[in-house]
């Protein structure tokens, strides 16, 4: 007996036209229509989602890109997911190419691990599966109680390098900081190019600040009697007198250095997110001084906040290549150095394979361990 497989629908939970561009491209490739829904903000700024067709018993894919207004995008996704769950959709799969709050995934001094909070909220709203791209930290997958497919944009960026960078065989892949070295190395391996690593930043980046708590508090015992005698009446006594803890030495930041030779080469800096560009601009300056004659930046997610376009335009960077996971039309208008690579193909293919129950291994065939 031929049982017809229940169909799938693709919805977009974004409210602005710029954000729904990617969803339109994906549905074109799949050959389906975008599901009919209306998402908007009321005059009192509450989000409203109306799903205009029946979704009973169907598999639903919600495509959500994250534009400037992050919290509104999250709310739109949650409201739509919950609306679909209460309308008896069978599976709700979130396609969230750039996963927001992924930089707030570590415990900071009395902060919140927002990424975990977001994962719990998405599960509660009714999502059963997530497709995303180039998660900032792969360990974020562990925050979820359901499957997470972390696709990679690197094949597209590698293809761009091979096709669009003239004389790419004379290039060298550069990691802007030691934490990006693993990713840079995987690019260098696949292109058979050299690697350089930059070290020593002028200011330490906010999101990588380690947990600043000390336990127990370091108090120097100045009374000169380590051991049994407690300093009387003072509130600032060491909890366990006699145990002298070495005070943590502040890390000294050396001036920026480049490990590796970039003289007479094209420098290609690779990273997953390009947001505040001050670090990139400073790195480009140094690379130019060391002899690189062209500087490219390849990043998966082009957030390009604040006045990034202006800073890039005025800097030594020749080209910034990002994918269309994050809408950045406005930034492109302000800065012609920004180029876009379309990744809708891999997202559409992932949707197709998940719906048909096929293996996703093909999409990961060209990925190294460190990517």
């Amino acid at each position, binding site marked *: 007996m031929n049982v017809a497989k229940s169909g799938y629908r693709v919805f977009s939970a974004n409210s602005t036209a710029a954000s729904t561009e990617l969803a339109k491209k994906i549905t074109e490739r799949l050959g389906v229509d975008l599901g009919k829904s209306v998402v908007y903000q009321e005059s009192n700024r*509450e989000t409203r989602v109306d799903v205009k067709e029946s979704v009973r018993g169907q598999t639903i894919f919600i495509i959500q890109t994250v534009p400037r207004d992050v919290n509104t995008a999250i709310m739109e996704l949650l409201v739509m997911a919950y609306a679909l769950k209460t309308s008896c959709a069978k599976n709700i799969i979130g396609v969230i190419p750039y996963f927001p709050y992924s930089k707030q995934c570590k415990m900071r001094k009395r902060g919140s691990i927002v990424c975990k909070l977001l994962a719990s909220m998405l599960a509660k709203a009714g999502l059963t599966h997530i497709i995303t791209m180039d998660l900032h930290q792969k360990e974020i997958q562990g925050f979820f109680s359901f499957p997470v497919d972390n696709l990679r944009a690197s094949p597209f960026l590698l293809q761009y390098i091979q096709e669009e960078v003239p004389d790419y065989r004379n290039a060298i892949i550069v990691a802007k900081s030691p934490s990006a070295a693993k990713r840079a190395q995987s690019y260098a391996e696949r292109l058979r190019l050299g690697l350089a690593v930059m070290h020593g930043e002028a200011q330490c980046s906010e999101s990588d600040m380690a947990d600043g708590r000390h336990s127990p508090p370091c108090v120097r015992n100045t009374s000169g009697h380590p051991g049994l005698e407690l300093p009387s009446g003072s509130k600032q006594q060491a909890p366990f007198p006699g145990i002298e803890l070495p005070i943590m030495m502040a890390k000294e930041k050396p001036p920026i250095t480049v490990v590796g030779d970039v003289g007479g080469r094209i420098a290609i800096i690779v990273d997953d997110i390009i947001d505040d560009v001050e670090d990139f601009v400073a790195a480009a300056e140094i690379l130019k001084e060391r002899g690189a004659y062209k500087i490219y930046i390849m990043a998966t997610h082009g957030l390009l906040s604040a006045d990034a376009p202006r800073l890039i335009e005025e800097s030594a960077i020749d080209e910034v290549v990002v994918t269309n996971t994050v809408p950045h039309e406005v930034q492109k208008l302000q800065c012609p150095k920004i180029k876009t690579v379309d990744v809708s193909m891999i997202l559409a293919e992932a949707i197709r394979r998940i719906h048909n129950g096929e293996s996703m291994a093909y999409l990961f065939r060209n990925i190294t361990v460190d990517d």
Partner: protein
Amino acid sequence: MPNIKIFSGSSHPDLGQKISDRLGLELGKVVTKKFSNQETCVEIGESVRGEDVYIVQSGCGEINDNLMELLIMINACKIASASRVTAVIPCFPYARQDKKDKGFFDIPVDNLYAEPAVLKWIKENINEWKNCTIVSPDAGGAKRVTSIADRLNVDFALIHKERKKANEVDRMVLVGDVKDRVAILVDDMADTCGTICHAADKLVSAGATKVYAILTHGIFSGPAITRINNACFEAVVVTNTIPQEDKMKHCSKIQVIDISMILAEAIRRTHNGESVSYLFSHVPL
């Protein structure tokens, strides 16, 4: 009071300050900011280990941002080993899309009423209150209005929409008498103010001498302020669940009832394990 901390989100810091002043406490130190990519970042500035934490955040302004900030603050307090975290949400967002009923929450909910504060304001500010009529601008608010009218021992009226034919505009019909009386419109929230402005016109043409509007939550989005300025209200009174300073600059008819003492008393009673139901019919001093 030991072991209690009060934090205020960025939606209504003034109310947070008033509440903590009434309780004789300092507001807890917290830094809320946004990164350049618009992601919210929250850092609690003091120890909350083992404390009873109250977070004051109202659902107003940029609702999604404020909601996210509240969730992140609650999460941060829980991870920092607070013994209990209570959210104080004077104006609960998304309340018109779902019913804000107790049964929808898995955790205890205390829904306080502004009614005692409203009654007090009426008695202190409207001279002719003994001979007024309390009016509901729609049929749904009848219960609220009759409760107030009973406590003041005055009459009530209501306005309901009548649809003659399918495509015809709703007609507003006044049920009750307001001739030669002061009419007081009472409702829970005012957003674009279309309904209450129509209601005010109706009441004046039915013979009311003065029209007041008393609303718990003054959202006032879109054309609301213009509509109020053009309508025939003596005064539009709201509580300070939502910050009103900006709106008062553009409209002299808006007056504010301070409800910080009700919230402060609720917090005090919850912290001490006392009953909160006293507040349903009394305004603390």
